[in-house]
Each structure stands twice: as structure tokens, then as C-alpha cells.
């Protein structure tokens, strides 16, 4: 690489190792926005004394890149990021140190030394669980049927460009009512429908709340209380409809033989 103009003297230490991390946003901390998480993560790096590398320039930034983040208010078991380090660390120790440095509820689940290829290239779909308290599973079932029967379900959402209308149907590769749903009984009068959902990454992004809008459009399903949404996995969607953890490929490269 050639010399860059206008750099402060000395510069920053180079990246010698990249580590990919899977983390969860759980319970009340699912209300953490992406910006909030990014700030907390940078502090956690300092608390845990992680030898993070910094970008060059007058205002050096720590080398962190994020894969598509779950919306604020949505829980997740599968968020991903990658960090660049200026000294090698043991990924297992790194996971422990970072997990301890973050608030409980922001939990670091996995850390793997990055192999070749980019993280983003290995993520093209997410699976979600939608809990709809006070919704009868039978009613949810009917809505899901109506939704899947259609080729296109137009929904609206406010975006940075204003109100937009787009299709919420095509991106959905799987949607079903889980047998873990709570059917109303004499003992417990409050049902809870649980919907399992797999959505491909498309532009504009189809989010779980867009699919919920789709269920309203297709079948008039209106949950009386806000649904609780969790991302269960993100990764490569196989022909069999499974989602492969994007860190698996790195683990394979890391393992000898």
C-alpha cells in the first residue's frame, strides 16, 4: 500500500487478527438500539482490555463491522460482528472477557478467528419467532394460510425516504404456527400463538413487523398486545430450508485437518 496523505505521524498499529462474534440481545435489553449497542460494545472492548485496532486518520475509530442488526425492541439470539485486533488473542478467552464486560442481557455467545471470505456473504436469511399473546393459535393459523395463499402482499412502512409500499410475501420462505403455541383452556384463559418465520434478505428489507402487517392485510389479524419477536438465527439458507451459522465456515478453516 502506498503512503496516505495527511496522516498523523506514527499511525495506528496494523490488524493482525480478525475475530467474528455472535451475540444475543435478550429480555429487557432487546430495547437496545443498534447505536446504543455499538457504544456499549466499544466500552466493553476497553473494559475487557481487548487489543482492538484503530482506523487511521485524525479521529481513529475502533475496527468493528456489524452484520445486519435486529430492529430495536426485537430480541435476538444471532447477531454478528467482526473486530480487527492489533495483537492475537484466544477467541475463547475473548468471548469470556467481552461477555463479562457487557450488561447481562447483551450476551456474547461465540467468538471465532475469521477465515477467508466475508461475513456478509454468508448471511442471506433470518429465522424469527413471533409470540402473539392473547391471540388464539387457530386464528393465527387461518391468517398464515391466507397469507401463504397469496403471491404478493403489499404492506406499508415509514422509511427514511417516507412512506413506502412493498411486497412482504415473496421474501418469506417459511411461515407456520408452532405447536408450542398456548391454546386457551379452562385453566388458563390466555392463549398465545407462536409463529415461526424464515425471511430472505431482500431490498427493501422485509422485517417481522412487515410480515405481521402482511397478516393483517391478508386476514385482518390484529394482535391486541404488542407481539414479542426474537431472531433465532441468521446465515445461509440451504435448499433444505435450514439456516447455516456463518461462523461454521470459519471454524472449519480454523480446525486442523
Amino acid at each position: 500500500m502506498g503512503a496516505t496523505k495527511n496522516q498523523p505521524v506514527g499511525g495506528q498499529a496494523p490488524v493482525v487478527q480478525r475475530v467474528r462474534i455472535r451475540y444475543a440481545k435478550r429480555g429487557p435489553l432487546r430495547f437496545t438500539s443498534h447505536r446504543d449497542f455499538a457504544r456499549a460494545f466499544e466500552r466493553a472492548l476497553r473494559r475487557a482490555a481487548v487489543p482492538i485496532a484503530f482506523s487511521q486518520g485524525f479521529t481513529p475509530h475502533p475496527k468493528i463491522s456489524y452484520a445486519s442488526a435486529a430492529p430495536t425492541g426485537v430480541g435476538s439470539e444471532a447477531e454478528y460482528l467482526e473486530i480487527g485486533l492489533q495483537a492475537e488473542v484466544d477467541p475463547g478467552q475473548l468471548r469470556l472477557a467481552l461477555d463479562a464486560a457487557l450488561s447481562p442481557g447483551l450476551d456474547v455467545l461465540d467468538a471465532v478467528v475469521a477465515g477467508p471470505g466475508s461475513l456478509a456473504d454468508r448471511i442471506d436469511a433470518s429465522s424469527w419467532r413471533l409470540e402473539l399473546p392473547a391471540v388464539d393459535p387457530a386464528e393465527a393459523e387461518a391468517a398464515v394460510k391466507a397469507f401463504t395463499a397469496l403471491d404478493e402482499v403489499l404492506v406499508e412502512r415509514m422509511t427514511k425516504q417516507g412512506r413506502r409500499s412493498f411486497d412482504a410475501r415473496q421474501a418469506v420462505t417459511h411461515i407456520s404456527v408452532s405447536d408450542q403455541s398456548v391454546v386457551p383452556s379452562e385453566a388458563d384463559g390466555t392463549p398465545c400463538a407462536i409463529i415461526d418465520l424464515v425471511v430472505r434478505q431482500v431490498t427493501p428489507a422485509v422485517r417481522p413487523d412487515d410480515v405481521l402487517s402482511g397478516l393483517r392485510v391478508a386476514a385482518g389479524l390484529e394482535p391486541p398486545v404488542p407481539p414479542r419477536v426474537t431472531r433465532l438465527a441468521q446465515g445461509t439458507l440451504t435448499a433444505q430450508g435450514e439456516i447455516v451459522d456463518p461462523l461454521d465456515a470459519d471454524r472449519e478453516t480454523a480446525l486442523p485437518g
Partner: protein
Amino acid sequence: MPMSVSSVFPQLEQLLPRVSKPIQYVGGELGAVVKDWDATTVRWALMYPDAYEVGLPNQGVQILYEVLNEQEDVLAERTYAVWPDLEALMKENGVPQFTVDAHRPVKAFDVFGISFATELGYTNMLSALELAGIPLNSADRGLDDPIVLAGGHASFNPEPIADFIDAAVLGDGEEAVLEITGIIREWKEEGSPGGRDELLLRLARTESIYVPRFYDVDYLPDGRIQRVVPNRPDVPFRVAKRTTMDLDAWPYPKKPLVPLAETVHERYAVEIFRGCTRGCRFCQAGMITRPVRERSITTVGQMIKEGLEYSGFSEVGLLSLSSADHSEIGDMCSGLAEQYEGTNVSLSLPSTRVDAFNIDLAQELSKNGRRTGLTFAPEGGSERIRKVINKMVTKEDLIRTVVTAYTNGWRQVKLYFMCGLPTETDEDVLEIAQMAHEVIRAGREAAGTKDIRCTVSIGGFVPKPHTPFQWAAMERPEVIDARLKMLKQEINSDRGLGRAIGYRYHDGEPSLIEGLLSRGDRRVGAVIRRVWEKGGRFDGWSEHFSYARWVESCAEVLPQFGVDLDWFTTREREQAEVLPWDHLDSGLDKDWLWQDWQDSLTEYEQPDCRWTPCFDCGVCPSMDTEIQIGPTGKKLLPLTPVNSLRVPA
């Protein structure tokens, strides 16, 4: 025995997807403490009565939170003002005011302590009480309700909220909260004898906790106060402020709260000293926090090291009322700069003193590349008005200092002034423009470039209790606004210079209301309540503050007492008048304050007692305190760098 208290989070959780920035209501900060309710005896809910983003960084609340939670049988949680969107949903769904730590209802606690850094939080207190299901009036509360306790600088005159609070503490809180805890613990263990009244009486008998209900206020026919006297024999005539001596023995916060939500300050803040004897006559903080008590250079160094390791903050603020005045500030700044060189930690010193020394310190702190802004506070535009307010700075000092800053590479400085000061004329304010012009002219010459700027920032003067200006008349808002407009024109009268000068100011109207609340008496409580009933909230936020609502409410409730808004604000008081806070003892001798007020009118300057003989303000002898300053002669040692991950054991 009260039943164990459960979390309201399941109900709250339903509402959070429908409000803005829900993260501010969920807690989960680093440093947050959640204890078993049933394993504790005395429980405090601490409130900063503003939005979470403003309240969370508050040092006072963080210190008391930590001091209380260090006690094994004590539990302290925090609560903040909820924004109107959530307030409406909480009312609709019957969710009470909650703490962010364990989401317990505020009403279940023994004490509801509210820290008033400013009077503009009063309406938010009423919202919180209502949401909590605690009667707004102290007189209507029963054994099931917490003791509503006010603290913070505004509690040096809590009379406007006397009907709503049960008690107030004046001054430093560290030891006060432990003493109050002890009294409540004992009373509860005895089976709460005599009910709420007995508990309040025990608090009042400490002579340093003010219980408004035990004092009657009589008025003269013309509306002035005749006297404020105890209505029972066993409470003191005057209630004294608290002073924590030896700050090295109270190194808090040790475990600062680190929020997930974005807040106004994201830094580890350490107080390097408390108190100030510079004697600026408008400054309530400087008057009521005397004497000066320094924290030693070594304690400061240790607190920063541990605070940064604990929090992961990358910014440190060295706080005090005039940080450059610490006896070892030079060694402290150079020592810290060395310790953190090359670490991406930035150090800042709120700089207000106008002298070149300040720039040396700022240079020192910016060693590792990051340059924080420089702010100087001459406060008054003319030499004359600076003598009136006892801000001993000459125009030459200021120009020299600012030019030094430009010469040393700063491209931007901020100058802070006040408008509406006693005896102020149009000319005094217009001189700010001349000063700013001269700063730019001299700065361009010294820096050899046209590319320099200064920002003139102007605040409205509000006369405060326990200051020499407590007798002063406020200027009318329209006069303030006219002067500010004139000043703007004067700054821009020279376009070449005016372009390099930024101008920021506040309208006169909010200051007038702050003045009403600062120097008001118990009759102002009815105004606060009326404003709140009409929807007044978040009065410190210009988008929520409504001057018209305050004026209207004053006109509705004050005539029955034969007084009005002007009577409280633009009226000058006479020496003999009983002031609403005379029975609250800040240690300052009222005769000395009056003399200092007279001295200000003759433009007599009062030097600082740290370096010149005592001028008998009265604080040290009456409060049994003394100036605690260095130098200790100690130095900060280099830090050993950490080379391995901090993995929990």
C-alpha cells in the same frame, strides 16, 4: 409487614414498543444494583426529576446510590421523569412510576428522594408523585407512603414545594442519607411508633433536616413574610446545611453508572474539589458549598484509574466550580496527561478562569491529540459590571488569554456572559460586542490567519437565595430581549468581524420563571400545581416550557394572597424583609451577605479567602468547617499498561 414488592416490568414491557427511546426505561446499566427486597430494611427510590438522558449522569444521584447500596440492609434504586408519551400510556394502563433498576413501584419505598439541581424540575416531581399514586400534598400522606425528601441546590429554598415534600436536606448528601437511613431503621424496628409524624419529628430533631410542616409562615398585610416559626417546641428555629469534610474519605463514584442509552455526558467525572470562595456574587453554588475542600491529587488519580477500568469510558472530566484553582492542578494535569498518553482517553477541564494558566493546562491535557474546547466566562461585558458581580477580570486579561489560545493553535473559543445583572445598562451589554470584536482582531493578528472564531453565549441572570443578590430586582424580560437584540446588531455592525463571531442566547422569559421558583415562598406552590394541572412538564426544555402557562397560572392563584409574579421577581427587597429561606442556614451570615450586596453597588471587589485573610462570610465558624487545600507535594506515578485480556476469574 408489607408484602414483597414485585416488578411492574411485565406491564411496562407492553407499552415500550409504543414509546420513543424505550431503552431509557429498562435499566440494565453497568453499575446498576438490584437487591433482594425482603433482605433489606430501609429502601430508597432516588429521582433526578428530568429525562433519563439528563438525569443518569448526575453525580449527586450516582454518589448517593452507591453510598446507600454499600450498606447491606439498604436498597437504593433510581427513577427518572418519563416523557409525556409514556406518561399517557402508564395512566391509561395503570402502570405506576417505577424504578429503572428492578422496576419496582416508587410508592413501595421508605424514602422517595428527589435531587433538585434546578427548580425547573418541580412540575416533573408532581407528575412522578401522581404516577406513583402518592398524594401530592404531604398532609394527605399516610403510613403506606414514602417520605418525600428533597435535596440538591434548590433545596436551599424548598418553600415553593413545601406542601409537596415531607422533608429537605441542605448541602452534601453522603453522610445525611446514612443518618436518615439510621433513623428510619430504628423507627421501623421499633414498630413505627407514632406513625409518620413521629418519624418526621425524629428527622427534624437532627437540626439538619427541614420538615416544612413543623414551621408556620405568617404574612404581613402587604404580602411580605412576618415570620417563620416552629409550630412545636421540639424542633429547631433554624435548620443547618450539611458539609462533608475530607473528600478523600468519600471517593465516589467508584462504580459509575454506564448507560446503554445515549446521555448528555458520557464520561467518568471526578470532583477535584467542592466549594468555591472566588466570591462571584451571582453564583449560588459558590456561596452555599463553602468552604473549599480539595480532593488530593493521589485520590483523584486513583479514582480515574479505577473509574475508567470499571466503566470503559474514554473521557474524563475534572469537575469543580473552578477547576484551575486546585492547589495541585498543574501536577494533576501533567501527571494525567502522561499516564494516558497514547490511550485514546481524553481529559477535559471545564475551563472558566480567564488567565493564561488555563491554556497551559488545556495544552497539557490535549497531549494525546484530542483538543477539547476552551470556554472562558468573563460573565459581564464591562469592567464596571464585572466589579459589581466580583468577577475580577480585566479586559486586557481576557484579550491576552484568548490571544494566547489562538497562538497555541486553538481556532475556536467560547465566551460566556450574563444579561440582566443588577445595575446593568445597555452600555454594559453592548461592551460585549466590543470585546468580541477585539478578541477576533487581536486573535487574527496573533494567529496570522483569518480562520479563527469565537462564540458569545449569553445566559439570563437569575437572583438566587443565599447570595448577595438575593435582594436584587430582576430585569423585565422585554428589556433583556431588547438588549440581546441590540447586542446582536452591534456584533454584526462590523461584518468582517461579526462573521467570525457566533452568538447564542436565551430569551428573558424562562429566566423570569426560574426567578419566581428560586426566590418564591410557600404561596408559589399553588402556581406550580396549577401549571402542572394545565399540562406543564419538563420546564427545562424549551419545546415543553410555556411562559404563557406560567403567567396565566400566576394571575389565577396569586391575587388571593395579594401578590403577583412581579412581586416575586422584579421587586427589590429591603434589608429588613424576612426572606422565605431565612430559617434555612447555609452558614452565610446574613449581615455579611447584605454588606457584600452593598459592596457590589459601590463596585468594591472582594478577594478570595484562600489567599487573603478571612472576610468573615460566617460559614466556617457556624458550620464548624475549615478550608481544606493542598499542596500535598505528591505526584502521579506512571501506570503499568495492561497487556492481557481482563477475563473474569
